[in-house]
C-alpha cells in the first residue's frame, strides 16, 4: 500500500492567521473566545430572565 511520505517538522508551520504567530497563541485565543461565549450566554440569560 503506497502512502505519501510522513510529515517532518510540521509543528514548525505557523497558523498563518493575523495576530496569531504560534499555535499556543491560537489555542489561547480560542480558549478566550470560549470563555467570552460562556460569559455572553450568562449575560443573555440574566438579561432576559
Amino acid at each position, binding site marked *: *500500500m*503506497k*502512502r*505519501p*511520505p*510522513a*510529515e517532518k517538522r*510540521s*509543528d514548525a*508551520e*505557523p*497558523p*498563518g*492567521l493575523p495576530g496569531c504567530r504560534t*499555535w499556543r497563541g*491560537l*489555542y489561547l485565543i*480560542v*480558549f478566550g*473566545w*470560549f470563555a467570552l*461565549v*460562556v460569559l455572553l*450566554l*450568562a449575560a*443573555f*440569560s440574566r*438579561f*432576559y*430572565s
Partner: protein
Amino acid sequence: MNVVDWVVLVGTMVGIAAYGAWRTRDIRSLNTYLRGRPSTGWGTIGVSVMATQASAITFLSIPGQGFESGIGFVQNYFGLPLALIIVCAVFLPVYRRLNVYTAYEFLGRRFDEKTRLLGAALFLLQRGLATGVTIYAPAIILSTVLGWRLDLVIVFTGVLVIIYTVTGGSAAVGLTHKWQMAVIFGGMATAFVVLLAKLPADLGFSGAAHVAGALGKLNAVDVSLDPSRRYTLWTGLFGGLFLSLSYFGTDQSQVQRYIGGASLREGRLGLMFNAVLKIPMQFFILLLGALLFVFYQFEPAPLFFNRAEWQRHAEGPAASRLQTLEAHYAAAVGDTQAAIRAWLEARASAHPEAEGAARAAMVAAHQRADRLRAEAKAALLAVDSRAKTKDSDYVFITFILSKLPHGAIGLLVAVMFAAALSSKASELNALGTTTTVDVWRRLRPLAADDEARNVRVAKRFTALWGVFAIGFALFAGFAENLIEAINILGSIFYGVMLGIFLVAFFLRHVGGDAVFTAAVAAQALVIVMFFSLNIGYLWYNLIGCAACLAFSLLLQSLMGTRTPSGAVRGA
C-alpha cells in the same frame, strides 16, 4: 408538500449525491480514497467535522429540546472547545507524523497488534450497531409526519449515501459535506427568519425573548452544584470534555475527517473552526426552539405534537378523555396568552409590584398548560403502555409543515435529509476504512502492496456496511427498544476506548501487554457493573476510562519497567 417542495427536496438531495459521485468517480489512489484529496483545506475539513457530528436528530430534536426544557442543553457542548484544543495539540500531530489511516493503526504502532485489533473491534461493534439508528431515527419521524412509507424512506436515504460514499470514499464525503452544510445553514436561517416574522407584531424578538426568559426557557448557564440537575456548567465542562475527547480523538468517523488535508495546519485550523463555531451554532438551534415555544403561546397549539400517535388513540377507548384534555388545553393556552399580554403591559408600566403579580399569574397559567400536556401523555400511556409519548421531536417539523411557505418546506425537509446523509456517509466511510486497514489487511498481508485491490476492497466493505445499516434500520422498526440499548452500548465501550488512547498518549512507560489486559479487565468491570448496578449509563464512560488508566498503571508496575524499544517517537 407540493410540487415545488418535491423539486427542492429531490433536487438538492439527489443533486448533491450525484455531484459528489461524479466529481470523485476517477479516484484510484488509496490515500485519496481513505483520507480525501491531498489538497483539502481547513475550511473543507472544518465543515466536514461539523457535518459528521450534526445528524438529522440534531435538527429535529434540539429545537424540541429548546421548546420543552429551554436552552440549558447548550452547556452540554462546553467541554467541546477544550477537547478540540487537546486533540489539536496532542492527538493530531501524532496521527499525522505516524502517517496512519485509522486511529487504531496508531495503537498498533504505539503498543502492539492485539491492542490495535481491540480498538478497531470496539469501534466496529459500537459504530456498526449505531449505524442503523442514524438512518432509522430521522426516518421514523419524517415518515410519521409526512405520511411516507418508513421502509421507502430508509431505503432511499441508505442507497443514496451508499452510492456516493462507495464511489468517491473520503473525497466524496468531504465534498458533499460542504454542500449539505450549505443547505442546512440556509434552511435553518430561513426557518429562523420565518419564525421571527410570524411572532405577534407587537412582540418582536426582544418581547419574545423576555417572555421565554420569564417562563424559564433561556437559562443558558447553571452554576448549581446539585448533582440531580442534568445540565450545568460543571457537567458540561467535565462530562462534555470527556465525551468530546473520546468522540473527536478516538472515533474513526471523526478522526478520518481531519487526518487528511494538505498539512497539519489545515487539520488543526479545521478543528479550531469547530471549537469557535459549535457552541454559537447549538445556541441558535436551541434559541429557535425557545422562540417556537413563545410562538405556540399565541397560535393554536396541538396538545400533543406527534399527531399520528395521538390520532391512533383518539378513536379508541380513551377518546372522550383525550377530547376533554384537548378542550382544557385550548382554554389553558388562551389563559396563558392573556396572562402573557397582561405581564407585558405591567412590565411596560414600570410598576414593580404589578409586574411581579402579573409574572406570577403568567407562570401559574403556563404551569397549568404544562400539567395538561403531562396528563395527556399519562392518558396515552394508560391506554397503551408502548405509546410514544416523547413529542418534542415533532415540534419543529410540525412548525415547518404548517407554517412555512412552499419551497421553504422542501428546503427544511432537505435539511433533515442532508444532515442524515452527512453523518451516515462519515460513518460508512470510517467503517469501511477500519475494516479494510485494521482487519482485512491483517488477514491478507500479501495484498498490502496492491493499491487497486485495496481500493476495491475498501469500496466493498463500505457498501457492505451500508447494506447492513439499511437492514438494521428496517429491523429497528420492529424492535424500537434496540435504539436505547445501542446508545447504552456506546457508553459502555467509549470509556475504555478513551482510556486506551489516554494511556497511549500520556503514560509512555505503559506497554501493550499491560494496556491490553487492563482494557479487557476494565471492559469486563463495566459490563458487570452495568448488569448489577442502577446508575445513569453516561457514568460508564468515566468508569471505563478511569478503570483502564488505573489497571494499566497497576499492571505495568507489576510487570516491571518496559524496554523503550517499543515506544513510538512523538507518541
